[in-house]
């Protein structure tokens, strides 16, 4: 595989993993603007375990467990907040993490932190595929059904016996684990990390991938992350090939404009439940068991 394609594939895979980490809480109606915090934790934890002599294949799961524990612990206070308060609280959490790590000398502080073991695309790609499959599976289970019900109507879900807090905490914690997995893979692929890499823009972009992809089905984050990773890169390539530098310069302006227009014309995201139904049953109207169980 050519170096260029490989580097783009890695970026795509990492974005997809991050996106699923934000998607799980979003599917149950919680907006998490703290992606950067969990990515940072995963990256640094795995790098530190690795530097302390733990082989990479154990360091990454250990980092995930560590991040999931933190996610689980902060889930309880953070899930007490709602809506805009939750957006702000998760955002503040990410900033606190960045502030802490930049002051920890044993993690390299502001100078950044080199990482020993390398993970190439032969690790990253299969792991990404596993993550995608896991999320599709999860959304098809009764837990996934409960999460989607909470997204639609929390009070009614409670009355039908759904343990809303359990489902929300589970979604938030699993999301934290996935984002830390992405962070750990980032650390081991680039072999160097610094806190400035995972800034607030990263959190914003990942949340955008998910909301623009659509939170109703497990396809949303996959399509959202893929679309918004590939299209700007493709525009950059087109600009280079055609010699029209303005395309590359203004591609993010178009990106922003697309976001604004999408909220007008397709506010529920690129992939909606209805769209999946239409693709799965192109002739419509027919109903059978396959349709009954519905798309994931």
């Amino acid at each position, binding site marked *: 595989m050519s170096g260029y394609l490989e580097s783009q594939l890695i970026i795509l895979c990492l974005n997809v993993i991050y996106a699923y980490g934000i998607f799980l809480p979003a599917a149950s109606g919680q907006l998490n603007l703290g992606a950067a915090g969990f990515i940072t934790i995963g990256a640094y934890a795995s790098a530190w375990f690795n530097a302390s002599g733990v082989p990479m294949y154990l360091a990454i799961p250990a980092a995930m467990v560590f991040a999931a524990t933190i996610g689980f612990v902060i889930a309880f206070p953070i899930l007490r907040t709602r809506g805009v308060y939750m957006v702000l609280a998760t955002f503040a959490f990410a900033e606190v993490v960045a502030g802490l790590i930049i002051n920890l000398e044993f993690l390299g502080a502001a100078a950044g932190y080199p990482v020993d073991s390398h993970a190439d695309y032969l690790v990253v790609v299969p792991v990404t595929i596993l993550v995608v499959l896991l999320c599709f599976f999860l959304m098809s*289970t*009764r837990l996934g059904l409960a999460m989607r019900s909470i997204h639609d109507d929390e009070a009614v879900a409670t009355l*039908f016996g759904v343990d809303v807090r359990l489902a929300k905490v589970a979604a938030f914690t699993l999301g934290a684990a996935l984002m830390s997995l992405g962070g750990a893979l980032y650390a081991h692929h680039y072999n160097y990390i610094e806190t400035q890499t995972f800034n607030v823009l990263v959190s914003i972009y990942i949340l955008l991938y998910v909301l623009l992809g659509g939170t109703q089905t497990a396809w949303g984050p996959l399509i959202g992350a893929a679309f918004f990773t590939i299209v700007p890169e493709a525009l950059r390539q087109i600009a280079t090939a055609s010699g029209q530098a303005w395309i590359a310069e203004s591609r993010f302006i178009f990106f922003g404009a697309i976001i604004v227009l999408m909220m007008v014309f397709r506010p529920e995201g690129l992939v909606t439940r209805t769209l999946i139904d239409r693709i799965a049953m192109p002739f419509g109207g027919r109903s059978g068991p396959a349709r009954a169980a519905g798309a994931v």
Partner: protein
Amino acid sequence: MADDVLSIEGLHKSFGGLKVIDDVGFAVKRGSRTALIGPNGAGKTTIFNLLTGVYPVDGGTMVLDGRDITHVPAKDRVIFGMSRSFQNIRLMPHLSTVENVMLGQHARARRLGDLLYPLGFRPRNRWATAAKEALEEAGLETYPGQVVANLPYGVQKRIEVVRAMVSQPRLLLLDEPAAGLNQVEAQQLLALLEKVSESGVTLLVVEHDMHFVHNLCDHVAVLNFGKKIFEGTPAEVNDDPLVREAYLGSDTSMAGRGAAEGAADAS
């Protein structure tokens, strides 16, 4: 009493100093079809919300099938055999009909193994099949895979009943099931509820449409300003002076008044 599926005693609830429910007590006999009626703002829906645990009570006890549920968390009450429908349809708009019904099964599937059971991967699994059968029994087999937001109002109302029924309740609470339905839809709903009742489930119905109440119910409790003012049979209710005063302060036929009110109610 052993044959009461639900008994409420001395129930109190205030919202910011306003007594919404004031010392209400009544019992619902097993297998009965009890109606809870009263003018707008009488506290009927509040009673449902207290029963299902949406709000905590300020005082009093609620006993469901011999078990005190007064302080049981809302999410656990459904396991004790009580399920409800809502005044304004509250199906999950982004879920399909079958998925909405499968949510009703949740009370029976709360163990970890059930939570991680893939409902979507194997279309013929037992949960989906059971949900489809429940829909078929209610005559709704033509809609299983559709997202409910786009279905007709009357169909959505019936799906709500099916969803409540699959949790296998002994007591079914129905909050204005006939409101907003046309004649045909109301008849279809009535038929469905008759069937539910014959299967042994007790019905407690909040309803404004007195024709509907007369057709369905065998027992009536009337609330006014948070107090119970009457309990008896539907035949007696029209003649009770307190009830007539509560509704109109005059002697206009209550049936006509109630039906007219049904559509515009927001209590």
